[in-house]
């Protein structure tokens, strides 16, 4: 297969470019925001540990956190939603742009909420076990989660591309629901890996590794090794 044939086309190009934008946001994030801030910077954690909630709140910049979580979702997770976006573009008729916007709105909203929860969980883990302990625990847990039936059932539900209405209001409503369901199934499947990338050292490298894993299992592997366990 030649490279031009490997390159994605149409809506896939937009997905790739947007995901690259997400990675640029993560790369360009200043140290003050810092990737650890996505799960609670040491300063924040120290403040929380000391019960200084106001100090912790002052240390956190909600805007930066939101930008970081949005960047993380777009960089790591948007490529996993490419089939749904392609489906809306192809089958959405004249209302397809509206459908794409509706899908992205709900999909991004659930992911940002999930990342907020995971960040808090990562912070609590770090508080409880220390940085090394939290990283080890999250890594091992993610490793195990990857082989659970729940993970694979959620992964397969991420493939859903339901019928799309022709009329714009109905299409927008359907795409909102699709964004929500795709996002929640994706979270159900990927949350453990995402948590691990948040608490592992060198978060950017961890995110790259996590993305490679999740993209591979979404597009490259057709059947999990632990699949027979799902129906026992």
């Amino acid at each position, binding site marked *: 297969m030649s490279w031009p044939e490997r390159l994605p086309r149409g809506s896939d190009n937009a997905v790739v470019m947007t995901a690259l934008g997400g990675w640029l946001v993560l790369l360009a994030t200043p140290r003050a925001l810092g990737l650890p801030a996505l799960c609670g910077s040491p300063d924040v954690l120290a403040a929380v540990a000391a019960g200084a909630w106001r100090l912790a709140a002052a240390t956190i910049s909600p805007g930066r956190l939101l930008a970081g979580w949005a960047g993380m979702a777009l960089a790591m997770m948007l490529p996993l939603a490419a089939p749904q976006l392609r489906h809306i573009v192809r089958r959405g008729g004249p209302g397809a742009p509206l459908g794409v916007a509706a899908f992205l709105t709900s999909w991004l909203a659930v992911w940002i909420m999930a990342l907020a929860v995971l960040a808090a969980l990562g912070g609590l883990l770090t508080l409880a076990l220390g940085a090394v302990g939290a990283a080890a625990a999250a890594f091992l847990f993610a490793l195990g989660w990857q082989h659970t039936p729940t993970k694979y059932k959620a992964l*397969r539900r991420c493939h859903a591309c*339901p019928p799309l209405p*022709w009329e714009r209001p109905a299409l927008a409503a359907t795409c909102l629901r699709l964004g929500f369901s795709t996002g929640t199934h994706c979270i159900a499947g990927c949350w453990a890996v995402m948590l691990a990338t948040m608490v592992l050292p060198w978060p950017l490298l961890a995110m790259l590794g996590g993305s490679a894993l999740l993209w591979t299992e979404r597009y490259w592997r*057709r*059947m999990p090794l632990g699949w027979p366990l799902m129906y026992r």
Partner: protein
Amino acid sequence: MPHVRKNLWKLPTWDPILLWYAKAIVAMQAKPRSDSASWGWQAAVHGWHPSLAKPGELLPSSALQAKFWNQCQHGSWYFLPWHRGYLGAFEQIVRAAVVKLGGPATWALPYWDVNKPAWRKLRPEFCTAKLPDGSRNGLFAMERRTGFQTGDVGIEAFGVALSGLLVEPEFGGGTAGGAPGFGGPRTDFFHGPGVAGALEGQIHNYIHGRVGGSGGFMSSFEQAGLDPLFWLHHCNIDRLWEVWRSRDPKHKDPVAGAWLTGPTAQKFVVRDAAAQPWTFTAKEMRDTKAAKLDYVYEDVTDPLAGAATPAHLLPFAVSAVVPGKPGIRAVTARKRVTKALGALSPGVSLGGRRNTATVAIAVPRSRAAGLRSLSLETAAESRILLNLENITGVDGGQAYKVYVNLPDDDDPATSERNLVGVMSLFGVASASDPEGNHGGNGLTYVFDITALAGARGKGVGASDEITVDFVSVDDDTPEDSARVGRISVVRETA
């Protein structure tokens, strides 16, 4: 000298080909499913679900299952090459079993051609539990359509018609609403089903459903290979690929690297007669006389006797020619432009005899030229396609005749007017499972309704809506037994 695959219905009663096939099957069925030369393994390569395992049954490791099982390609341009490799390896394994039992080394699978009315029945050898010597008949399986013992499973001419599919000019197609081509739409590794190509969607799926019926082996991916008829049916499908290629010089296999050397997500790999892994690509499946395949068909005569490609399809062949490359570059629908003209969603629930849906053509009245352009008279390089999307259900044995703009006073039981094809539900159960390979997206069928677009009266384009009638092939189809999630009308321009 290649092995010769012969016409099943031209064989004498209990011809040695059938007798040795029956005996080899019994021998293969005696092996555990963990043995790649067993009947169970061979069926699992096509499809497998862990719920089919018998209590305590010895299965191969998860790694081996992941590598070798569940590979069947449907709704993909790999449908034909994958099944060719699969059948080739199977044939060699059966031949080895035949030789071991004392049979001829020239043994080859016969093909079940259904082109003649007399051939649209199950041969008696497949309907009796005993061989002439009183031993068990491997060709017999109870898991077929009710009443199959008479040989009549209700295969009718409309379901096996080749006139629409053998004139399809392109091998591959797209999944965006355009024609999926003769061989299926461009995909990577795709353990479907999805958007069925012309050959797969019509005669292939129809025969599966007619033989399997409700709950029979042939009606599901996971068990189809357990019926000895499956292999003979697929030989005929494989043979029709040869017929398509030989009947028109414009009919060419794809030349895209994606097809020739793909897929990328996972390579096709089966075990051969020596139990060694054999990895193959579509490129290696183009010549049946190649060493690893080593067969020819007794007859690849054109059943349409040279019927020409319909005029409206010619631009789709010509426009695909790439200067400097031989023949037609029948690869994908990349050069095609598809435009949805209207859709009905939610679609329609199907049951009993006749179910009607109406699709509004969403072209503004003020743009009458656009509406008229639905007609061939003003859109010479276009074709109008009916898309039946997200078809879900539980019974892979069901089938529906699909009509467009069938007049209210026409009796679909007797009238073939406005019939655009058959929607068979082979594989619908796994396609409808939200935790299945494709998230429960269901089946998708695409029918060319261009001929009706050019018609007068109630032809498409004469009104701002079309009606689509689904008529159950079987009288006893229960209500709400299947659902078409969306019905859309698409214009594809070459």
